[in-house]
């Protein structure tokens, strides 16, 4: 796991406010993300962030996330958040900004995860299950949720495409292959 440094050189906190002042931070973040090795799981430590608004979130979080999605085949990278701050109302601000966007984010909390962005209820349940188990296959998930293997498999592929789950291919002892999906944290 690689931490993306959000801080400017001197300050100890950063405000994700406005567009113009966030463009240099976007460039700094993008450089770190692009230069990270293939397959990296990156995270933003939100403890470094105080104020935020929609334009700042778009520049520093949504745009890099869209790039990660767009370049998933060549870079295979992931991004999540840690240390969301209640005092700064991070979760509410992020939920609002990601509404209607084509990206979804996960944030690590003390006990579990927060899913930020538009994701259907069935996909949410499946994602939460995957994070509870850390590693899961379509077959196990389908058994646990009482659903059909095919539909769960399709949902897992989509969650992987959305960069919310990693995926590894495994050889089965009895022959054949299966995908194992694992959480980012």
């Amino acid at each position, binding site marked *: 796991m690689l931490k993306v440094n959000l801080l400017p050189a001197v300050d100890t906190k950063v405000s994700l406010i406005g*567009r113009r002042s966030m463009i240099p931070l976007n460039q700094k973040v993008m450089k770190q993300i692009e230069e990270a090795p293939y397959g990296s799981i990156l995270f933003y430590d939100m403890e470094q962030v105080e*104020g935020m*608004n929609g334009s700042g979130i778009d520049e520093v979080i949504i745009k890099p996330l869209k790039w990660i999605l767009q370049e998933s085949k060549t870079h295979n990278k992931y991004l999540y958040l840690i240390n969301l701050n209640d005092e700064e*109302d991070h979760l509410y601000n992020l939920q609002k900004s990601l509404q209607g966007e084509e990206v979804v984010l996960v944030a690590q909390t003390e006990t579990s995860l927060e899913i930020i962005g538009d994701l259907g209820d069935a996909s949410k349940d499946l994602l939460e299950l995957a994070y509870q188990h850390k590693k899961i296959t379509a077959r196990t998930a389908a058994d646990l949720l009482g659903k059909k293997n095919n539909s769960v498999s399709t949902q897992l592929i989509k969650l992987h495409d959305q960069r919310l789950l990693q995926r590894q291919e495994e050889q089965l002892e009895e022959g054949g292959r299966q995908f194992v999906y694992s959480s980012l944290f």
Partner: protein
Amino acid sequence: MLESAEKFKNIFHIHSWLDRCAYIFDEVVEYGPLKVDLGQLKWLTPAGFTVLLSTLNYLDRFYYLETIPPKFDSRTDKFDIVGYMERMNFLNSCPEDVKLSFEKMINMDYYYNRNRNRKEKELDELRISRCDRDIEELGRSIKRIMKGKGLHINRISDITEIVTELAQNAVEHADEISDAECYSCVQYYKETSTQPGRVEIAICDTGRGIVDSLRDHVSVGSTNDKIVEKAIFTRASRFPEQDRGKGFNNVRRTAFGWSSDAEFYVRTHDSMYRIYENRLELLDKGRYFPGTFYYIIINV
């Protein structure tokens, strides 16, 4: 002479005042003394404050402002308008010649020496922001003050979102003209027996306005009203290469997401509009005067 009405309260008062400023600017070509009569003024809202201050500062670049301050008579007036203006920091931010007129005609020491305890936590006064850092500080101050007033944390985030997005926009517009600045005033009024609790947000600048800023970046031949509509309802931006233009959508969504009966007004170029969730209504056309003026009222 530029003369204020008794109330400087709503978008119609603002529009009318800006029309009068435009008339002065167009007709009074001699750069010299300009009489500004605030003698009748009895009531100012946040929008009135920001507009009055921004226009006086703008006109002061071209005229010497001889100001007649508002009159307060404790026997007949329920509300001390001079005290309110002083408390809101108007006299610290207005042109020097305006301040001198107040001090010449009113015993301002009485107001200056009043107790202003805990002001930084309770009162969001009139503020002027000139750069990105000022906007960050503005956001912090709003959070601090609204928290002190007991607003729900999500509502504080909404106010901060609206103010910082519009103020950032204003500062960026303002950059194009030297000395231009963003004026903001946010007030929370508790519920009374006659009125619901509400938040009023007023933001303005003295830049060239939405129409002139965007004209070269929207379809050729768009009317002024169409340009304003595109600025508010689409991602039209002066910087298309930077993939911007989300700020106004965020503001609109936040205001109406909070309260579907939010009142949202803008006065820019020569017209005033009411912004609804999905449409724009032209309220009136007047004369061109620089600046963009936003006024939002949300019932809490």
